[in-house]
């Protein structure tokens, strides 16, 4: 497993975040790209749904929640109908189970090569390392994932996996790994990758994909891509393996429209992804092309535990990446700071929760104790979420649990106690505030117009260990208000 998304536990976020914040290029790429996507998302929803946007999210929320609340029925129906269509359905409790099922199928067919469409759950279970160890050469066919693969890098965003990389890095890896001539032109680079992969598609023994949705009524899978690599990856090889988390189930095509409309708009501000592909069994006797065998590998890997727990809502996530784009913390620290294939706000709650569900009592938070604090609680993630997952609520819940288990910094409790005492004593409160402002100004370091406090003295230093405090300049609001009231000027 790549250490970037599967680090040694307990995971320490701070060194990675610090490095990311100092990386000028990363700040530029991730900052610009996320800001642009976030703005475009707002634009397309405003244009197409106007004031009904919130109602649309509510409908999607309840439709997906219904599926989770009835997941046993839907799963049973899916298995029955998928089997009726000629597919084989396997269930995998752990990541290792999922890999072993695939390896067994590969062995049975004597498979030596595999082409793979983008899938988060295969990152989660470590399918690629398992295949490589078994001597099955595997090619990632999504362009971003391909570039990460040849660089030994890992995805840092759910939808745009190489958001942290630029064309220069890509150009260098293509020269080094593919023997291509040096070019920084994105179109030329893309065409080099295209030609390279076309050769591999024709030879591969296995096609692997994930799925965005499973339809219980139809016993079908739905896969959304923009590049078309899914159809090429699974259309040629004789065997198609679909890896999919059980939370992707919905009732059927009757419930699909809201999600297709929300997924593409939330992720990339498109009305629909370019290719929305339905899989409904292996090749029929009267069809030309397509796999002779279709296998579904339905993955638990903690999901059943999440379903049973207080955070069932998290399983509504459709992996659109909108909360990452909207998050002021993700924009600064980048995806690798979260130590998981699920970065950003959703990752900050989902990663420890999946770990808890697999590792037993509270192992999750103890292993990822920085994640609940990697948020300003501004609520942008909740506003961006197409299925209305209240991420800030869960982050707060996790912070409270960290504190109850003595995993928060000691100074946090002391600070809150001090705050509680001061906030009930107005005179003391004002004096304390003045003292803080005075000291902050004395200790702050100027950076242009703004001054920052980077190392607060005493116990307050724990807070500035992972943040800088913007030093307030000028007068306080109270002073300003008094002044304006006296001079009679309207504020």
């Amino acid at each position, binding site marked *: 497993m790549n250490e970037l998304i599967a680090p040694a536990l307990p995971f320490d976020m701070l060194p990675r975040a610090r490095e990311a914040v100092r990386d000028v290029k990363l700040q530029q790429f991730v900052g610009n790209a996320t800001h642009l996507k976030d703005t475009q998302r707002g634009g397309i929803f405003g244009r197409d749904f106007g004031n009904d946007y919130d109602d649309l999210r509510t409908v999607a929320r309840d*439709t997906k929640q*219904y599926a989770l609340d009835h997941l046993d029925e839907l799963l049973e129906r899916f298995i029955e109908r998928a089997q009726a269509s000629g597919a084989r359905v396997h269930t995998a*409790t752990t990541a290792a189970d999922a890999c072993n099922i695939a390896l067994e199928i590969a062995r049975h067919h004597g498979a030596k090569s595999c082409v793979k469409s983008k899938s988060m759950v295969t990152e989660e279970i470590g399918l690629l390392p398992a295949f490589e160890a078994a001597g099955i050469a595997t090619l990632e*066919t999504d362009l971003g994932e391909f570039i990460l693969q040849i660089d030994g890098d890992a995805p840092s965003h759910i939808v745009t996996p190489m958001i942290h990389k630029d064309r220069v890095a890509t150009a260098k890896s293509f020269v080094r790994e593919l023997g291509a001539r040096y070019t920084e032109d994105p179109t030329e680079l893309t065409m080099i990758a295209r030609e390279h992969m076309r050769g591999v598609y024709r030879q591969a023994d296995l096609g692997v994909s994930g799925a965005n949705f499973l339809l219980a009524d139809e016993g079908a899978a739905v896969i959304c891509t923009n590049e078309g690599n899914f159809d090429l990856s699974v259309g*040629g090889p004789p065997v198609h393996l679909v890896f999919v988390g059980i939370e992707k189930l919905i009732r059927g095509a009757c419930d699909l429209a809201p999600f297709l409309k929300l997924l593409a708009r939330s992720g990339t501000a498109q009305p*629909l992804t370019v290719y929305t592909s339905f899989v409904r069994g292996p090749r029929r006797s009267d069809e030309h092309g397509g796999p002779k065998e279709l296998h579904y590998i339905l993955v638990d890997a903690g999901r059943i535990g999440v379903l049973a727990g207080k955070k069932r809502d998290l399983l509504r996530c459709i992996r659109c990446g909108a909360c990452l784009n909207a998050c002021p913390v993700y924009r600064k620290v980048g995806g690798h700071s979260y130590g998981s294939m699920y970065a950003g706000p959703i990752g900050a709650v989902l990663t420890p929760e999946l770990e808890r569900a697999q590792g037993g009592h509270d192992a999750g938070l103890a292993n990822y104790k920085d994640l609940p604090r990697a948020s300003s609680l501004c609520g942008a993630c909740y506003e961006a979420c197409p299925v209305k997952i209240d991420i800030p609520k869960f982050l707060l819940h996790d912070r409270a649990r960290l504190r109850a288990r003595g995993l928060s910094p000691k100074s946090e409790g002391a600070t809150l106690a001090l705050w509680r005492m001061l906030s009930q004593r107005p005179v003391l409160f004002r004096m304390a505030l003045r003292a803080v402002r005075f000291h902050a100004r004395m200790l702050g370091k100027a950076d242009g117009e703004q001054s920052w406090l980077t190392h607060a003295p005493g116990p307050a230093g724990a807070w500035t260990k992972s943040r800088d405090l913007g030093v307030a300049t000028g007068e306080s609001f109270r002073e300003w208000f008094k002044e304006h009231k006296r001079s009679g000027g309207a504020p």
Partner: protein
Amino acid sequence: MNEAFLARVRAAVRAQPVTVHAVPSHAVVRRVAVEARGLAELFAKNATAVGMRVTRVSDADLNATLLRLLEPHGATVVAVRDPDLAARAAKSAGSRLVANDNADALFDCIVGITDVECAIAESGSIVVSTTGRIRNAWITPPIHIAIVRESQILADLVDLFESRPDALDAASTTIITGPSKTADIEGVLVTGVHGPAAVEIVLLA
């Protein structure tokens, strides 16, 4: 094996109260009325907006249009379910025509001609399936020519799922909304990454 797994899911579902007992109405999803007039115009506009080229012709002009589109290009596969359209497309392809039962040969084709199961006005999409069409003829060659009849245009996705569930019966069905795209390298939009760089829609009145 699957039974034990299902039993665990059953227990997990029961471990929390059901919060949503019925799926809500999806009325808010619908922005285009099924009986709306001008669906062909709407389809043409939206298909163009996502980067496909739409040529509107009369039925009689189909062959001339195909000939013009095919003129500069080489090997062509015809994956058309409708027998009448298939014959006319094959005639237009002439000596460029390659056999349509060998998936590997698709990689050597420049053009794939298909008809469609239906089209969707709201998103400007076309729907193709493996019923009567060789799989991936619409995605492997760099140019895809799709023949669409105006009468095949549906209002929106809900209309597709409600009124044409048979469109999803094939082993593989794909809703196509534009040429193959990526913006993985620095967000710069590039078309034709894996699938076709050009999608030509011939819309028959």
